[in-house]
């Protein structure tokens, strides 16, 4: 793909609304960010925060009941308005996805060799032999023995299947990989192995990665930049290390504390959480109509203004932004 000026991926005011009969449920409510080649962006959030919907909508992978607006510029081309044929070419060859459940994302009745070869044959226009050779190399690179090319998915363990998913995602040497909770179902030890692998591949190949997870500590370890989503919007975005050590949004702070650091006396026998629950779909619909901060009902430092003022992302430091009125206070005082 020719190198174009500007970032590889630019998302502008992305909104996704699910239509459910009479009801409209806004899942993503205006998300903007950019990602360059070789950069890694982590997206953190709880279930219902819209993080997976947002990531899948980039490649128009959502059901037809989802209405997507905004712009997704990939190498300067808007994926949301482009033709389907063009989009199909972009999927896998230029941008690919590692899904959450490797077992359900792999076809159980076809060998993994066939499944890895499929996108190569489709997009790279090479022969069967060359495709198999590339598939074998890919398996080697993710640490699965290449002689197992003719095995079926159920013959592998969960960790190996997730490695195979990664191999498939890398099959056509994409510029962008979207990894949706790639390690969630895995054990700690296997998770560490898969993350290590993913990190190595990214460093070597200079691929842009969007990694989605509920686990802030995993993301901060893997990604340079981090976006924390709440109720369909970005609550805070910035360099990963800074977001962990010096969060500006109270929600980022709460998420960071939810998984304690072992050895930290402050968290010993003192688990930390947030009262209440993330907004339900009907509450989200109400939020989009009214004013005020979506996080206000659960916020430990909420003020009266949080209920009436509209919050948006404000600069909270170099290269970082937070959607909290307290950030503005900090800037003026």
């Amino acid at each position, binding site marked *: 793909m020719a190198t174009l000026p500007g970032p590889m991926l630019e998302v502008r005011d992305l909104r996704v609304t699910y239509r459910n009969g009479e009801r409209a449920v806004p899942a993503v409510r205006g998300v903007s960010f950019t990602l360059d080649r070789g950069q890694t962006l982590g997206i953190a959030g709880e279930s219902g925060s819209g993080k997976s919907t947002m990531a899948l909508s980039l490649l128009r992978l959502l059901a037809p009941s989802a209405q997507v607006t905004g712009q997704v510029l990939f190498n300067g081309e808007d994926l949301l308005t482009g033709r389907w044929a063009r989009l199909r070419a972009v999927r896998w060859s230029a941008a690919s996805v590692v899904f959450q459940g490797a077992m359900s994302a792999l076809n159980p009745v076809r060998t993994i060799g066939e499944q890895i070869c499929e996108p190569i044959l489709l997009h790279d226009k090479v022969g069967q032999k060359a495709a198999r050779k590339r598939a074998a190399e890919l398996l080697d690179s993710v640490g699965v023995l290449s002689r197992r090319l003719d095995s079926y998915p159920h013959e592998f363990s969960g960790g*190996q299947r997730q490695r195979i998913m990664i191999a498939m995602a890398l099959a056509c040497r994409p510029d962008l990989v979207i990894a949706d909770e790639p390690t969630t179902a895995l054990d*700690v030890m296997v998770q*560490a192995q898969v993350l290590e692998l993913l990190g190595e591949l990214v460093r070597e190949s200079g691929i842009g990665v969007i990694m989605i997870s509920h686990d802030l500590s995993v993301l901060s370890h893997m990604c340079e930049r981090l976006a924390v989503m709440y109720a369909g919007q970005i609550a805070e975005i910035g360099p990963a290390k800074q977001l962990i050590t010096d969060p500006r949004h109270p929600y980022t702070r709460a998420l960071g504390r*939810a998984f304690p650091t072992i050895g930290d006396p402050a968290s010993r026998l003192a*688990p930390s*959480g*947030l009262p209440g629950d*993330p907004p339900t779909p009907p509450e989200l619909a109400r939020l989009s109509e009214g004013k005020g901060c979506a996080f206000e009902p659960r916020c430990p430092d909420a003020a009266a203004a949080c209920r009436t003022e509209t919050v948006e992302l404000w600069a909270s430091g170099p290269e970082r932004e937070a959607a909290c009125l307290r950030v503005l206070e900090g800037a003026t005082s």
Partner: protein
Amino acid sequence: MTPVLEVRDLMVTYPARRGAAPARAVDGVNLQVGQGEIVALVGESGCGKSSLARALVGLVKPASGQILRDGEPLGYSAAALKAFRRHTQLVLQDPGGALNPRQNVFDAVAEGPRLHGLTDGLAARVHSALTRAGLRPPEEFAGRFPHEMSGGQQQRVVIAGALALEPSVIVADEPVASLDASVRGEILKLILELRDSLGLSALVVSHDLGLAWNIADRIAVMYLGRIVETGTVEEVLLRPKHPYTKALLSVLPDSGGRPVLLAGEPPDPTSVPGGCRFHPRCPLRAVEQDALCDSRDLPVLTGDPSVSSLAACHLAEQ
């Protein structure tokens, strides 16, 4: 003092599929939970921690060994089990699945008392259990059905259902694994509060070492059906002796040091290796080449709570 719940030389096996050896899910475990104590049982999936939890509430009958409550061994007649369960309650991982979708909150919480014939003042009992579990005001929740609540609220209902029987110990199998990060802490806080206010003891099963740091007094690390290291949380998590505990700690994202990645996947309980069961994956043994590791079996850890830390390893400095 007699522990509230004690496990002695427990073995749980599952019959094999045709031709294969039986799976030794729990393969010799000693464990004690004292009055008002919270013990964390951690390990990877398939290590036998869930089987141990199920055996502790009498859902699985052990192949051998004993479970004792206040020093009394658990019998397996219907009446003995019922009496035992009055005092030992289970909290499951997936609160959505643990509640009958056709029962409202009141009935779900009242179920235990009704089964045990505690129907005098049932409404007050349910009210109190809901309040203690943090579902306030209880009137607002009593008529709701599981699908009308969030995961955190559902887990509180499950906990309230257990509390309604006024148990002395709760066995919680991954109580927060399916909950959102921000809700996780609230449920853990609740378990700590219940210990402080009611003197409730708990055995919390988890894959998450951070959870142990958050709420447990003591910890037991399980690998392939055995406890490989046990002791106080501070001792085990800050000064681990067993190479497996060390490896688990090293792969935590914020551990700082270099992660020790164990080769391979969690092993198979149908074919437990001889000698030290961890030896095929052990990073220490690979360096030391100690012949003892693959030949000499290790004794089962006593689980003595008065010792600050015990490790089942030939190479660990005791």
